[in-house]
């Protein structure tokens, strides 16, 4: 077959042939085939070389050079397939089962893979080396022929290059054609194992290096020589490690070169690249861990420089020029010797390829760390500010990758899953919200992403009833607020925000210090907020500051609501004071004024001023009383000194409406509709009947007030305030601080040891059900006991004589103090804003019901608009749509109304 094709190609020559020539050709061809066979097959007999050269020469003489080459290459291919390839792949047979490589992760297994690969490559190299020697023989013979014909060297190099290229191509294609599927995995395993080994050497090396530098840090001369450039690690190397590392790299380099010479160039590159990336990933995971209190980005970058880049640098240097295939033997000369010495200088000016590698690896590391941190962002923010190093890392990563949207998505879903659930307290949610703002404003100074992340939290909080109250507490209360006990306990959030702002202002002044004042003024005057689409990566000096308070207020909707809630809470706090100490409230008011404006806080200021005035007036009244008793006006035996009575005198127009449980109950019992005017504070006080001696004090006090402040008069709100009293028993005394009603109740038992609930209620002036509820305080303390009277509806309360104290403090025989702040049953003194609105709304109830009787059904906004139109006086309708809606849903739940398809109906 081969002969015929060759002959066809050489038809011209054929014509010139005579018998002799034919004989010679046949003889030489036979010899050529036989010697080729001996050279290439079996053990390989190089001794037939001279004979082979002769036959080639003779065939070439007859112009059969291409026949010779083709036949020889074909024989090489057959021999390579038969011996080389089969033997080579046989080494890896035991790993062919799917999954074997993945399952066995032990390093022992890695070692085995390494050994097998090296052995296979070594054998293959020998085989190839031999075949190349044979190919050289052919080249040599062809060259001899040419020299004899043309006297002198003729273009022999191209001939040789051509043949070797063909051979190389044959080797690669034969191997590729028979490549087992799992071979790339084996390569990956090999590089992974070797890189891990290298990493171990380098890690040990780093530690060694640090010790070394520590020891020598005193030696300034030596230190001065240390370069601070990015890639000078080699220079301060300790040489033992250096040679160890070098040996390893040399070994890997040899394997890479061998693989390349077999045509596995890109497969090899992929294998070590994927090994480097998986090692880098493992390293990032390992370094990053669950500790958010340290930055890890620098150590990751350092590791990239020390391990993978050193490796790649050494490898690229080692492989050097030998990448080309035209001079296969020159590879054996090893460029290592020269590269060893030039190693560090090459590192100083890293090749473009190496820089590309560095960028790829750093990007990968940033992305990996970023993903890790984003996945744990919720925990990181819980730890904030201790976790700020992790936040700083994440910021840098995101600046590099620009994948902020990943953060937004992931964090929102974590929030929904972890935080915005029924189990989380409103306080916890608020604190996480604030921490989120604080943490993310580092990453996102313009607040663009913060806006997106905050929205679900704000939405969720708007659905909770206690949100406003918790917000106000968090802002203004330095003690109760933070459950995590942050570093600044005793500091309200408002205080903290204020301090931050002052710091920023100081920093701002520093910034501007050197700049031209006039220019600074112009800049300030032209300042405009950044547009919404502002590029968050852009670091402008005038960039928008994230306004924490603004983001908190935006949960509620308006600052007025917040201020109103604060006023209610302030009123409650002030009215439960047993002294006039308001220093912390004054401080808080000052802060609120800074943030919400003085006019918004006007009423609160008057409330505080009332306390200050009350203190002064109280002192004056006591002074007039003292003077009078000195001038001889005798007090009765049972009279109580005015000294024990203090009063907080309020400007009631400026205080929120007070809760008036007793009057409300009375009026309701009489079937009265709740009218707006009853919420004026004047109506809410007198019902409580205080004991006679106390009532005398009240009148005396009021009289003296009127004398000092003519024509102003006092109106007592007897149910408000606090009473300190001491109960004395045979074996002990106990001090209680209680509400006036509790004091009024227990004082009734001084004269009479047992009361029916009906009589007692009348004696203290409250409805029976209120009494029965509130008297539980004394029953729970073991002071009173309860029994059923003759009429089963009537309870009998009896003072427990010489009783055993059932309260927790019973063990103390001395006096102990029971402190009761506010009310025991959670009834607050001051109506909450919500109650206030609901009660103001009741005025319109009749009107709404009347409208629905006439119109049948109405939608929410129609009811709203009608109320606005008709209720213009006494009291004018000034409620929001939301307030109306919540009132209407109250009527629905009371089964007065029905809501179907957005329309309200009368419940039939």
């Amino acid at each position: 077959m081969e002969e015929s094709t060759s002959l066809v190609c050489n038809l011209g020559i054929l014509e010139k042939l005579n018998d002799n020539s034919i004989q010679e050709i046949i003889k030489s061809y036979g010899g050529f085939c036989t010697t080729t066979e001996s050279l290439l097959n079996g053990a390989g007999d190089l001794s037939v070389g001279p004979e082979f050269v002769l036959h080639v020469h003779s065939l070439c003489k007859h112009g059969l050079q291409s026949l010779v080459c083709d036949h020889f290459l074909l024989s090489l291919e057959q021999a390579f397939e038969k011996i080389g390839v089969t033997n080579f792949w046989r080494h890896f047979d035991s790993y062919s089962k799917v999954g074997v490589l993945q399952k066995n992760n032990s390093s022992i297994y890695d070692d085995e893979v390494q050994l097998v690969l090296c052995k296979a490559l070594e054998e293959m190299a020998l085989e190839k080396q031999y075949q190349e020697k044979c190919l050289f023989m052919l080249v040599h013979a062809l060259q001899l022929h040419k020299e004899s014909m043309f006297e002198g060297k003729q273009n022999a190099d191209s001939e040789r290059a051509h043949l070797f290229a063909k051979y190389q191509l044959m080797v690669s294609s034969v191997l590729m054609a028979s490549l087992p599927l799992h071979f790339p995995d084996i390569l990956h395993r090999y590089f992974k194992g070797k890189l891990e080994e290298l990493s171990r050497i380098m890690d040990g090396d780093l530690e060694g290096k640090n010790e070394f530098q520590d020891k020598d840090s005193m030696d300034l001369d030596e230190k001065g020589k240390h370069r601070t450039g990015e890639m000078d690690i080699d220079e301060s190397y300790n040489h033992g490690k250096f040679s160890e590392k070098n040996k390893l790299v040399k070994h890997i380099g040899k394997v890479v070169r061998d693989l390349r010479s077999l045509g596995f160039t890109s497969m090899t590159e992929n294998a070590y690249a994927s090994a480097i990336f998986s090692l880098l990933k493992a390293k990032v995971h390992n370094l990053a861990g669950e500790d958010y209190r340290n930055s890890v980005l620098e150590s990751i970058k350092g590791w990239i420089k020390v391990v993978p880049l050193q490796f790649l640098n050494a490898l690229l240097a080692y492989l050097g020029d030998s990448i080309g295939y035209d001079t296969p033997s020159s590879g054996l000369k090893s460029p290592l010797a020269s590269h060893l010495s030039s190693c560090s200088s090459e590192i100083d000016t890293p090749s473009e390829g190496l820089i590309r590698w560095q960028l790829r690896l750093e990007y990968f590391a940033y992305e990996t760390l970023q993903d890790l941190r984003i996945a744990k962002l919720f925990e990181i923010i819980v730890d904030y500010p201790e976790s700020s190093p992790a936040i700083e890392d994440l910021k840098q990563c995101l600046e590099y990758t620009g994948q902020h949207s990943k953060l937004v998505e992931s964090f929102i879903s974590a929030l929904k899953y972890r935080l915005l659930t029924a189990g989380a307290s409103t306080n916890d949610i608020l604190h996480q919200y604030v921490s989120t703002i604080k943490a993310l404003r580092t990453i996102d100074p313009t607040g663009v992403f913060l806006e997106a992340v905050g929205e679900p939290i704000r939405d969720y909080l708007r659905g909770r009833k206690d949100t406003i109250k918790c917000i106000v507490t968090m802002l203004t209360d330095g003690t109760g607020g933070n459950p995590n006990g942050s570093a600044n306990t005793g500091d309200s959030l408002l205080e903290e925000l204020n301090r931050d702002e002052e710091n920023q202002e100081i920093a701002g002044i520093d910034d501007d210090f050197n700049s031209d004042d006039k220019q600074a003024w112009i800049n300030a005057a032209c300042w405009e907020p950044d547009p919404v689409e502002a590029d968050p990566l852009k670091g402008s000096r005038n960039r928008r500051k994230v306004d924490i308070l603004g983001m908190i207020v935006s949960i509620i909707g308006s600052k007025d609501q917040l201020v109103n809630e604060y006023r209610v809470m302030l009123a409650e706090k002030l009215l439960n004071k047993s002294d006039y100490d308001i220093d912390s409230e004054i401080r808080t008011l000052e802060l609120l004024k800074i943030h919400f404006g003085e006019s918004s806080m006007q009423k609160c200021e008057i409330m505080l001023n009332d306390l200050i005035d009350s203190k002064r007036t109280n002192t004056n009244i006591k002074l007039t009383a003292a003077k009078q008793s000195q001038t001889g006006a005798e007090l009765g035996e049972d009279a109580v000194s005015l000294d024990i009575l203090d009063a907080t005198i309020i400007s009631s127009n400026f205080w929120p409406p007070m809760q008036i449980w007793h009057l409300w109950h009375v009026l309701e019992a009489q079937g009265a509709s709740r009218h707006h005017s009853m919420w004026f504070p004047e109506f809410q006080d007198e019902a409580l009947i205080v004991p006679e001696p106390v009532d005398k004090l009240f009148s005396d006090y009021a009289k003296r007030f009127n004398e000092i402040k003519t024509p102003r008069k006092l109106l007592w709100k007897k149910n408000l305030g606090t009473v300190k009293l001491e109960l004395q028993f045979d074996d002990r005394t106990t001090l209680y601080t209680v509400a006036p009603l509790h004091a009024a109740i227990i004082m009734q038992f001084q004269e009479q040891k047992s009361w029916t609930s009906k009589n007692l209620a009348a004696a203290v002036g409250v409805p029976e059900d209120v009494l029965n509820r509130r008297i539980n305080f004394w029953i729970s303390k073991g002071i009173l006991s309860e029994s059923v009277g003759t009429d089963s509806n009537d309870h009998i309360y009896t003072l427990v004589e010489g009783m055993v104290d059932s309260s927790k403090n019973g063990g103390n025989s001395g006096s102990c103090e029971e402190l009761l702040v506010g009310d025991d049953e959670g009834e607050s003194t001051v109506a909450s804003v919500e109650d206030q609105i609901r009660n103001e709304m009741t005025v319109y109830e009749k009107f709404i019901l009347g409208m629905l009787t006439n119109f049948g059904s109405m939608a929410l906004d129609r009811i709203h608009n009608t109320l606005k139109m008709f209720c213009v006086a006494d009291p004018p309708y000034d409620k929001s749509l939301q307030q109306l809606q919540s009132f209407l849903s109250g009527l629905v739940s009371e089964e007065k109304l029905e809501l179907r398809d957005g329309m309200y109906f009368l419940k039939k």
Partner: protein
Amino acid sequence: MILFRWHAVASWTWDAQDETCGICRMAFDGCCPDCKLPGDDCPLIWGACNHAFHLHCILKWVNSQTPQAHCPMCRREWQFKG
């Protein structure tokens, strides 16, 4: 039983017949539009006709009505109650 201390709460009032000042229409127990604090700082004053106003309100009124001012409520000659 010993009562140590009763810290009570009261509100004050000017005890005028009307609730609001006839000049500024603000509550007597509040203060006039020019004042920030009620009470001593913004007192009431009664005229001979027994009509009461915020002191600051009636002073402004009287100054604007020359030569003779009249009570804004009853149009009688305005005189401060002695």
